[in-house]
């Protein structure tokens, strides 16, 4: 019995530590591209295999629609254009009839993969499902009706300008009414996209084939295989060993190595995603605005971009990167790197230098930064911040936790600061700012409460005029910049590696869709 325990411990850990290579290989072999196996009609060159970190967990668009939308199996009512604006999708046109009523004209001549025609009536079941789901609870939709054969009318409880942007989300992807079973669940993702669902292995891979009579252009390959591979090194290795044609979200530092290898190329592009510090405004020391500003002056964001992010991306000023979206404000005052300014702000706030760490009334300036390691660069950035804050008199502890644990603990209890990363525009509307700084609806946990910000956000939600909305969101961004409940650090650059024979791939900034219907293989 003793024997078993010791050997098992050793063995288990050996697999954990030194046998990682084996583990990766194993993980990969579970979801191989069996699809080129004998008996498959398609020539190998007609199959494109894509690997990204997200595993396919559900066939239901309400749960996993964003993934089915990315690989062009399902299509939503509206799409996101390359300039991060709302563009036609299955609805060719849309208009606001009055404050709370919106009309969408459905595209003519579209059929679902099972042959059902797309009409207002066949669109209603999935739209209603979507707007009734919990994940879209923040969208105040009151009713979804058919006005005529090709026209859908959506009414909201309150005037809600961001509605079209929410109609680009994965949940609103249209599926054939035959795919919805009697109990309301989804049996198969029967959509309208250029690829149609063939089979999947829950949690690992999806196989889709070209739709013969797709209503748009493409697709140009016969078969699309999607693999969810959590580990970025595994994705890279599989790309290099020809098991993947496209590996998404690779570490920044691999961009150069990929380019230098024959047969591979790298695409780098900025996405509307930010890394930022969320401060706890309800507890010392970050309840004091001067201490928060001091942090922002003490952190050298350019050095982080240059040294940690391999020079890819840029230091953030506000929440939105200006070269991606017009909602960015260009007159925001950036927090320049200035440790002396940080020191004087801290002294002003009563934190006096006393040895290595500053103190105030016997309390030392000790803070804990929580972050998580599923986004690979965050722990390293946290250590740089730790070092730079020590320079101005903070005592910083970095704690790595599960992201879910951080959310839970930061929402329920007090914390100091969280280093987080998220999309700032996953639906293309600046109403996303409400998730960060609205006192009641914010999903971020800073505890920021500002009446003006709340009022501006609510007004901008109601107003339909774009310029008027922009003014309000701009003002919100300026106030947030001054008050720093959230300190924006850097934007995000994605690295996608492809085999060099993949043509026609154009990265989409919001990644709402990979647009794989446009790619071809040269072989």
């Amino acid at each position: 019995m003793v024997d078993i325990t010791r050997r098992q411990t050793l063995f288990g850990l050996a697999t954990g530590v030194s046998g990682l290579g084996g583990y990766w290989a194993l993980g990969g072999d579970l979801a191989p591209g069996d699809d080129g196996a004998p008996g498959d009609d398609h020539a190998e060159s007609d199959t494109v295999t894509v690997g990204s970190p997200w595993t396919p967990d559900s066939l239901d668009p309400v749960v996993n629609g964003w993934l089915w939308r990315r690989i062009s199996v399902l299509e939503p009512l509206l799409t996101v254009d390359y300039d991060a604006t709302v563009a036609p999708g299955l609805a060719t046109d849309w208009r606001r009839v009055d404050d709370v009523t919106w009309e969408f004209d459905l595209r003519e001549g579209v059929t679902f993969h099972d042959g059902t025609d797309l009409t207002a009536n066949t669109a209603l079941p999935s739209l209603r499902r979507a707007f009734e789901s919990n994940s879209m609870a923040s969208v105040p939709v009151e009713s979804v009706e058919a006005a005529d054969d090709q026209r859908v009318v959506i009414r909201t409880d309150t005037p809600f300008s961001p509605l079209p942007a929410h109609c680009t989300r994965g949940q609103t992807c249209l599926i054939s009414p035959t795919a919805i079973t009697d109990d309301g669940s989804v049996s198969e993702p029967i959509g309208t996209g250029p690829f149609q669902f063939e089979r999947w292995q829950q949690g690992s891979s999806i196989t889709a084939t070209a739709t013969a009579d797709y209503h748009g252009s493409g697709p140009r390959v016969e078969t699309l295989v999607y693999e969810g591979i959590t580990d970025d090194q595994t994705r890279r290795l599989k790309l290099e060993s020809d098991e993947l044609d496209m590996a998404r979200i690779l570490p920044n530092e691999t961009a150069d190595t990929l380019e230098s290898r024959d047969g591979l190329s790298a695409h780098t592009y900025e996405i509307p995603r930010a890394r930022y510090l969320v401060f706890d405004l309800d507890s010392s020391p970050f309840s004091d605005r001067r201490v928060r500003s001091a942090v922002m002056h003490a952190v050298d964001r350019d050095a982080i971009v240059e040294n940690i992010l391999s020079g890819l991306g840029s230091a953030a000023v506000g929440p939105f990167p200006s070269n991606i979206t017009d909602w960015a404000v260009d007159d925001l005052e950036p927090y320049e790197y200035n440790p002396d300014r940080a020191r004087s702000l801290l002294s002003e706030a009563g934190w006096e230098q006393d040895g290595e760490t500053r103190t105030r009334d016997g309390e030392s300036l000790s803070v804990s930064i929580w972050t998580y390691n599923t986004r690979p660069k965050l722990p390293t950035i946290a250590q740089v911040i730790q070092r730079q804050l020590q320079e101005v008199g903070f005592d910083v502890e970095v704690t790595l936790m599960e992201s879910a644990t951080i959310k839970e603990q930061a929402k329920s209890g007090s914390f100091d600061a969280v280093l987080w990363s998220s999309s700032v525009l996953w639906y293309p509307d600046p109403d996303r700012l409400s998730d960060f700084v609205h006192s009641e609806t914010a999903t971020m946990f800073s505890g920021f409460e500002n009446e003006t910000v709340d009022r501006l956000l609510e007004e901008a939600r109601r107003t339909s005029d774009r310029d008027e909305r922009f003014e309000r969101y701009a003002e919100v961004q300026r106030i947030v910049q001054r008050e720093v409940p959230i300190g924006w650090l850097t934007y995000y650059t994605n690295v996608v590696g492809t085999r060099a024979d993949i043509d026609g791939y154009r990265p989409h900034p919001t990644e709402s869709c990979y647009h794989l219907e446009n790619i071809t293989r040269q072989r």
Partner: protein
Amino acid sequence: MSATQSDPQQRPADSRSRLTDTIRSNRLAQVGVVVVLLLAVTAVFGPLVSPYDPVEQNLAHQLEPPSPSHPLGTDQLGRDVLTRLLYGARLSLGIAVAVTGVRLVVGTAVGLVAGYAGGWVDEALMRLVDTLLAFPGIVLALVIAGVLGPSLVNVMLALAVVGWASYARLVRSNVLALRNREFVTSARLLGRSRTHVVVRHLIPNVVAPVVVLATLDIGGVILGTAGLSFIGLGAQPPTPEWGTMLASGRTYLQQAWWLVNAPGVCIMITVLGFNLLGDSLRDMLSPTQSAQMEQL
């Protein structure tokens, strides 16, 4: 088994000579001893001779390959890898010794009580031990460390909690064999207290197998600490811990092989060293005890 051997007074000298004999005749044992001694020296004096600070960042010198000034290169924050390994050795060995110590003390105590008291006490304690042994140790440690939250102290706690059962079982079986031996019976008949019997007659006779188990165990604990730190439950940045270094260097596998290989090789050599030493210690025990120790 001769009478002299079970005489506690005579054992030490006896085993000392056998230890030296074994080590002289067994090359692997020599390797084990050398590795462990080297590690101990490194852990104690290494950090004193290194010119660098293990946590001081130097972004101008990040990811430098091995060179005379940085024999094992620098990491993604420009820290000297060798220095971090040296401090890491101190940490790893310290933790391993501490955790193994706790396991040993708790396990031995439980084993002595169970074996000597017998009856329902024995029954209750041994069922607890069975339960612990039935669980895969590392899974249980994962759960405990996960629940307590990520920190090195919690990892030590978790590893200590899951590991003591083997000691209890080993000590108990030895005590069961010893309790009816003449020298114990006579001590009892002479009216010696229980404490006296346990301390003077039982403990000296179970020390040897327990020490062997502990030596073999140290390697496991080092691996356990590194493993749990690797997945983020243990040492927090910027602590120079081997498992953490391995984990953070992993993304640079292609550009900077030294980031992964250096701590990886360190872990391997250390664990190997302790296992070789443990094996040779086991061989040094008498044939009967040696057979018993084969189970370890």
